[in-house]
């Protein structure tokens, strides 16, 4: 029988079979496709609150009446001074209160006049993200106060102000708008890769270990179709489903960006049809390789459950990939293009940063994925017969 025809028959049957498994499909859609956009929206609302705090220009001082000079300075910097709630320490700890609190000693004014260097505390909770991000701002504000005091005292003693600032500081940020946004959107590639993985997982296990468990593999092999054609058909279906999830997952960030709560982030995060298309192009070979790999792992297992346990290793490795980039901050090394997963992560990050890259960067991962897919299909074809006999 014509092998191409056999491949198409198996492909069609496996696709129909997988599409009928509605519950699994819905779980994958909900967990993988929606999760990324949801996290993106959540991050944007965090950024938005930080922005609001920064814009509000508020500073909480525990006893403002004890430090009129400091309050005066704050107000001259157009900050409004507020009193924190009385149990602010407990509230900061439980993250119900999100602003650091400036605590001045009782005799602040007198000590200041005498030049005794009164201790001013900035109370925040390093486990409380919101208070932590504002603490640095308040710290700078207080440094400004100290500088002003010292400048005035020295100026009164006839010291030139130029001597006080021998070096002028000015910082220049080289990052373009999009690469700045990747601080927040850097985890998107990870989400789409997990979506691809979960898309392939169930179908890969069902067409191999599931088929063994049902006892339908042995009768299947009694058909006059080449074994490799059966495997290629199955692999095609698994990859197809995985790619479908990849497409949905990539597209899902487009509507998600309309929901972005932070204007800054929305302005920085440019994700249009072109970016989505590129994501899909990068992910397709990854989906194909991952499908073959999962099938090769699962064909050795007698039951679906056993296969799930074995596949957990693959899932774990893919989940831990982002750790490599965390442990190696800075530009990605050339070798990363040779590692599936890392390569896709690197390419998608470059797309998000709107960085240019050459054909080599695209072709190397495609070639690596093709080799893995080929080896996987070959291994499954080779193992199929002995697997059928339990």
């Amino acid at each position, binding site marked *: 029988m014509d092998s191409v025809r056999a491949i198409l028959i198996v492909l069609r049957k496996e696709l*129909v079979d997988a599409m009928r498994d509605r519950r699994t499909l819905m779980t994958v859609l909900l967990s993988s496709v929606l999760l990324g956009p949801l996290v993106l929206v959540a991050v944007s609302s965090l950024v938005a609150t930080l922005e609001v705090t920064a814009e509000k220009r508020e500073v909480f001082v525990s006893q403002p009446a004890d430090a009129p000079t400091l309050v005066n300075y704050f107000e001259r910097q157009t900050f409004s001074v507020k009193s924190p709630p009385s149990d602010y320490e407990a509230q900061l700890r439980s993250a119900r209160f999100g602003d650091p609190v400036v605590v001045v000693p009782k005799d602040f004014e007198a000590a200041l006049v005498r030049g005794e260097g009164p201790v001013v505390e900035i109370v925040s909770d390093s486990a409380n993200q919101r208070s932590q991000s504002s603490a640095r701002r308040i710290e700078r504000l207080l440094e400004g106060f100290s500088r002003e005091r010292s400048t005035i005292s020295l100026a009164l003693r006839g010291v030139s102000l130029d001597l006080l600032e021998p070096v002028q500081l000015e910082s220049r940020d080289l990052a373009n708008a999009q690469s700045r946004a990747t601080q927040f959107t850097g985890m998107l590639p990870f989400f789409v890769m997990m979506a691809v993985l979960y898309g392939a997982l169930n179908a890969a296990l069902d067409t191999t270990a599931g088929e063994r468990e049902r006892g339908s593999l042995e*009768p299947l092999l009694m058909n006059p179709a080449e074994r490799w054609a059966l495997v290629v058909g199955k692999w095609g279906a698994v990859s197809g489903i995985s790619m479908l999830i990849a497409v949905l997952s990539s597209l899902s960030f487009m509507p998600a960006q309309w929901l972005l709560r932070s204007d800054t982030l929305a302005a920085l995060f440019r994700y249009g049809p072109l970016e989505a298309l590129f994501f899909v192009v990068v992910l397709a070979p990854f989906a194909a390789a991952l499908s073959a790999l999962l099938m090769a792992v699962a064909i050795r297992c007698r039951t679906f459950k056993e296969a799930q346990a074995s596949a957990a290793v693959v899932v774990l490795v893919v989940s831990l990939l982002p750790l490599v980039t965390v442990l190696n901050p800075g530009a990605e090394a050339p070798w990363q293009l040779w590692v599936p997963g890392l390569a896709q992560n690197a390419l998608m990050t470059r797309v998000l940063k709107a960085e240019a890259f050459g054909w080599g960067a695209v072709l190397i991962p495609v070639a690596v994925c093709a080799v893995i897919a080929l080896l996987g299909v070959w291994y499954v074809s080779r193992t199929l017969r002995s697997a059928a006999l339990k």
Partner: protein
Amino acid sequence: MIEVAGLAKSFPAGGGRGGGSSDANRRNARVQAVVDIGFSAPNGTITGLLGPNGAGKTTTLRMLAGLIEPDAGRLAVDGFDVRRTPRAALARMGMLSDARGLYPRLTARENIAYYGALQGMRREAAEARAEALADMFEMRPLLERRTEGFSQGERMKTALARALVHDPANIVLDEPTNGLDVLATRALRDSLRWLRTPEGGSKCILFSTHIMQEVERLCDSVVVVARGRTVARGTVAELLAQTGQTDFEEAFVRLAFGPASTRIGSGHESGPTGAAAEPAHG
């Protein structure tokens, strides 16, 4: 027409993968599942492959399906050698193996049509054939139902229809009545009898079993296998005459386990070959 001659097959002992034993002798030990099995099953005849558990029946049928490579011997289906032209041989056979799993999310019709397509049939032809088979096995109401939740009998009928979808000239069944109730067994027997007749297509039907009554009621010809060898061939009457018995069970026990064996202690489960002779792949 199925012809088997001088078939032999051995498996590594102890579960196939070494069994963790460091003893070289043990690692090299092999279980001879099939020593010398030979028979021929002509067209228009129901041939029974009768033997105790572990006699090598399933191994023989798996070799016939090309799932296991024999160590020696010849297998031919309508003259097509299974080892040299496995696809041609498989296309002429409808096989219902021990494993008869269906796809639970597909309907009975889709399950049958899938195998039809894999056998090279056009879609309409496979669909038409599925309906004809549904009429034959009285399972028309099942056709559009998903096979999830089918009873044993319903599964069996679907699996049988699936195996016969390409209207093969040779039908091979491995313990087909396993798990079937009386009515389903009777229906299956009637179907097989009809398939043997010229109107049914004068099929060559080969089935393995360890149940005497089935052989007595159904088979035109019996091949008795034990300890991996063909020990007797003939009709039920011929085998009775050969052993000088009137009871077929008694005749079978003598043929399978030797004349010395008595009624007590010579049940199927306690045959000298034991269960180890069946292949046990890891």
